[in-house]
């Protein structure tokens, strides 16, 4: 049984990944101009601007400003009349349908259940559950940081994983959370979707999955990759498709546990928008684009109150 199911699961993932990779390649090729992360025509201009800015920032640093690094593509654009590089959305009818479906699911089904859950399970317990699962997924983040070449981030993750797994009681307590680390550290972006983006693979088009919500083709491949590498998947015995369900169940449970802030952010966004579908699409894409090079950007704005 075990002997048979393990290769089957492996092949399933491989075939799925390949299919998505092919989709991705096709989609990225079609929309190379509009869907790429950075707007190519602006690159030379950006470099010149950044050089100028480095000088300006030096002189303004006395006023509490921080040094702009040459890599920051921030040109204080005035949002002129140019068309923004938006994401390709050829699957819009499908996406809109599942967006609507997820919306009803989240607000009318999940939210009341989550409300009941928070009433029964107090905050410290929820934090503990969250920490355990978060800690269990550290190996996935470590591998991604390695693949991204972010070695400083990788070592911080490794250190945290070891300390939290031992002194933190198997990750129940995130005792390293408050520790100041030597490098600006962020857990965001330690996923395979971001790794692919670091490797220069375009987003592909926007896609909304039932239950999972907004994604892009690249992030979908990333999600499958992260899940396949997840200890939930390989840690259980017997390994195989049966445990793929267990793994996704665990993942779902973990997501559910932490859903409170997601629901309120979603409600604020949708509540203030005229075209919720577009608003969520833009927010998702901007959020994900911001995760690339996040630690580098944080270096610019270290997470401590600047001197006045």
């Amino acid at each position, binding site marked *: 049984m075990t002997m048979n199911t393990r290769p089957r699961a492996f092949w399933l993932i491989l075939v799925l990944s390949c299919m998505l990779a092919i989709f991705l390649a096709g989609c990225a090729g079609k929309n190379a101009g509009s869907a790429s992360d950075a707007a190519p025509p602006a690159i030379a201009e950006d470099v010149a*601007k950044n050089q*100028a*800015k480095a*000088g*300006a*920032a030096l002189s*303004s640093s*006395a*006023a*509490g*400003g*921080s040094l*702009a690094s040459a890599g920051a593509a*921030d040109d*204080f654009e*005035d*949002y002129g*009349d140019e*068309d*923004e590089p*938006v994401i390709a959305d050829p699957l819009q009818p499908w996406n809109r349908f599942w967006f609507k479906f997820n919306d009803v699911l989240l607000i009318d089904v999940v939210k009341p259940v989550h409300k009941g859950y928070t009433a029964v399970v107090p*905050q410290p317990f929820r934090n503990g559950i969250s920490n355990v699962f978060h800690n269990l997924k550290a190996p996935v983040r470590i591998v991604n940081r390695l693949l991204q070449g972010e070695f400083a981030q990788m070592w911080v993750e490794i250190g945290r994983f070891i300390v939290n797994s031992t002194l933190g009681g198997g990750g129940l307590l995130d005792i390293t*959370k408050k520790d100041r680390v030597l490098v600006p550290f962020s857990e965001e972006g330690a996923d395979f979707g971001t790794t692919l983006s670091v490797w220069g693979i375009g987003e592909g088009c926007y896609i909304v999955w039932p239950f999972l919500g907004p994604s892009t083709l690249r992030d979908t491949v990333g999600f499958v990759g992260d899940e396949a590498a997840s200890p939930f998947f390989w840690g259980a015995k017997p390994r195989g498709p049966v445990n793929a369900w267990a793994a996704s169940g665990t993942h779902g449970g973990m997501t559910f546990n932490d859903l409170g*802030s997601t629901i*309120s952010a979603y409600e*604020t966004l949708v*509540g*203030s*928008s*005229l*075209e919720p579908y*577009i*608003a969520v*699409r*833009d*927010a998702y894409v*901007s*959020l994900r*684009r*911001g*995760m690339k090079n996040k630690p580098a950007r944080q270096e*610019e*704005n*270290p*997470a*401590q*109150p*600047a001197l006045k």
Partner: protein
Amino acid sequence: MRTILNFCLVLLLAAGILAFSLAGAKAAPGPRDALEKVVEQVIDTLKQPGYANPATRPPLRDKIVSAVDTVFDFSEFSARTVGAKWQGFSADQQRRFDEAFARLLLATYLNSVQGYNGEKVDYVGEKLSPKGDRAEVSTIVTASSGKAIPVSYRMMLKNGKWVAYDVIIENVSLIKNYRSQFKEILLKGNPEELIKRVGEKAAEADKQTAKRP
């Protein structure tokens, strides 16, 4: 000889102090200070016990509105959200859109700060554009649960005063987000329809603000 040298030294020192204090005076009303003052006022008002009670809230809310008005320039927000089609709006349409959108933004702002629960705001950076007329002030908002959210403000020097024209939360720009929505609406509809829908949404948000416990 020695006195001359001493004199020169004192003069140099005095010039240095003068230059230093001049630089200090120039840097004082920077974008960050302008923003920080208003954010502090808003948080102070939200912390007042009277704010929790819907009956005593309206005067306090008016206080927030007038504080917000000093640093958020909503007309700068609206010109940027429509983009290329803004020129196709008549002067009257631009004015009406300005009004409706300012109402929507204000109501959205009030709705989101209503849930204030001891969040802490840290100022982590201030970047000036090469010309010195644009700035980005970075803050980190930390909730009581420990979750930290980066919030940046894009600001511009307008009539000698720093005003905000965009808020960027977790890399999501408020202006760009609305812009993508308005683009979609203008693709199918005309300016009148957009103004109508913004107005309707603003009325809805206003009602929500009034209703909230």
